[in-house]
């Protein structure tokens, strides 16, 4: 791994100015995505700006209509949080199935959304639950935030500070995981609320996507049978040594059925 200048400022402003002063600066949160990529020489930033000394980014707050989860909350913290388990159990369960315990002890929600790995779990949770991404300068709805693989509207010097998840009537996440890495081969978050139903898919495509046909069917009849006959097209889905595009398309329907059943 190439060397870099390391910074560990103690405020959000300090992070922003370190990023602005760097040629190619990157934020370092849990490092569970960035460091592996740097070790494989697929990224070589000039500067790393660690969030470890920035206070106030690891809080979980209940705002009544939504939960605000600080960007540096680890997956382990979200999985174990009594507030999250009570208010949005599907989110706690999803976080508890990311990677392995050591990945969950270091990896953060902010890093996961900023990275937008096409096989990551949080993008489906955010889009499915209708979360809002909060940065140092603006609020971005999940539908606008998650682009194709690794793409987001974040500026080079922009910091995710929290993610707000609305409290919904019911939600569940079903994932068919890669047995070695635990990343989603296909993962589906289904959420039901007075506004309707949202179905978000990760792992299968080049980025998280919603399935309008399933959402409409579930709004009429919230049952596994309602989605059993709906399949997504395999055009443009991912294909690798674990699963081909057609198999992924099939898994989307199976995971959607399981998620609907688990919603109760």
């Amino acid at each position: 791994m190439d060397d870099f200048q390391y910074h560990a400022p103690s405020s959000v402003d300090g992070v922003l100015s370190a990023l602005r002063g760097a040629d190619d600066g990157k934020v370092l949160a849990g490092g569970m995505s960035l460091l592996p990529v740097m070790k494989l020489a697929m990224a070589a930033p000039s500067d790393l700006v660690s969030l470890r000394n920035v206070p106030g980014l690891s809080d979980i707050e209940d705002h009544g209509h939504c939960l605000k989860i600080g960007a540096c909350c680890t997956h382990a913290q979200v999985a174990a949080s009594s507030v999250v388990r009570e208010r949005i159990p599907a989110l706690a369960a999803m976080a508890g199935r990311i990677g392995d315990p050591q990945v969950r002890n270091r990896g953060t929600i902010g890093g996961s959304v900023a990275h937008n790995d096409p096989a990551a779990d949080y993008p489906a949770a955010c889009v499915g639950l209708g979360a809002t991404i909060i940065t140092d300068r603006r609020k971005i709805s999940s539908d606008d935030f998650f682009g194709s693989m690794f793409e987001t509207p974040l500026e080079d010097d922009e910091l995710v500070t929290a993610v707000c998840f609305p409290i919904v009537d019911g939600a569940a996440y079903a994932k068919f995981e890669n047995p070695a890495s635990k990343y989603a081969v296909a993962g589906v978050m289904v959420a039901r609320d007075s506004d309707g139903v949202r179905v978000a898919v990760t792992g299968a495509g080049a980025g998280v996507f919603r399935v309008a046909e399933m959402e409409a069917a579930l709004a009429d009849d919230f049952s596994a049978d309602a989605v059993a006959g709906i399949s997504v097209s395999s055009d443009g889905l991912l294909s690798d040594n674990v699963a081909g595009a057609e198999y992924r398309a099939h898994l989307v329907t199976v995971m959607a059925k399981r998620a609907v059943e688990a919603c109760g």
Partner: protein
Amino acid sequence: MPAVTMTVNGVSRSADVEGRTLLVDFLREKLQLTGTHVGCDTSQCGACVVHMNGQSVKSCTCLAVDADGADVTTIEGLANGADLHPMQKAFREHHGLQCGFCTPGMVMSAIDLVNRNPSPSEGEVRHWLDGNFCRCTGYHNIVKAVMAGADAMGGGS
């Protein structure tokens, strides 16, 4: 070069490191604590697991500079002289290792589990060891060892 200071196995240790120095390289090369292993370059195998501020982490995927000020325990810090930690004893008694390459990471990970969940079920042990790969044993004896080690620890380290 940034200077780092951390407590390793109860002793304060300082050194100058590069920004890119990984915690595992700091432990193995600067401190000669070679019990912590490196088994992959993809952050998946768990041979490098140590405890940092009471939690198990992959030391191959953590910068030494990010561990500045931390309290780190490695496999070398578990035994009390010749008296092995109960989890180490359990691995020996239950034949939880063959070549031993994965063992330091397995033991450190298992102790973190028992600290959180003093009497894990077999399923919980298997699920917890998701991030620790073993190429030799087939896992059965590792799981037995962890269950026995949990009993012997009597609810915490």
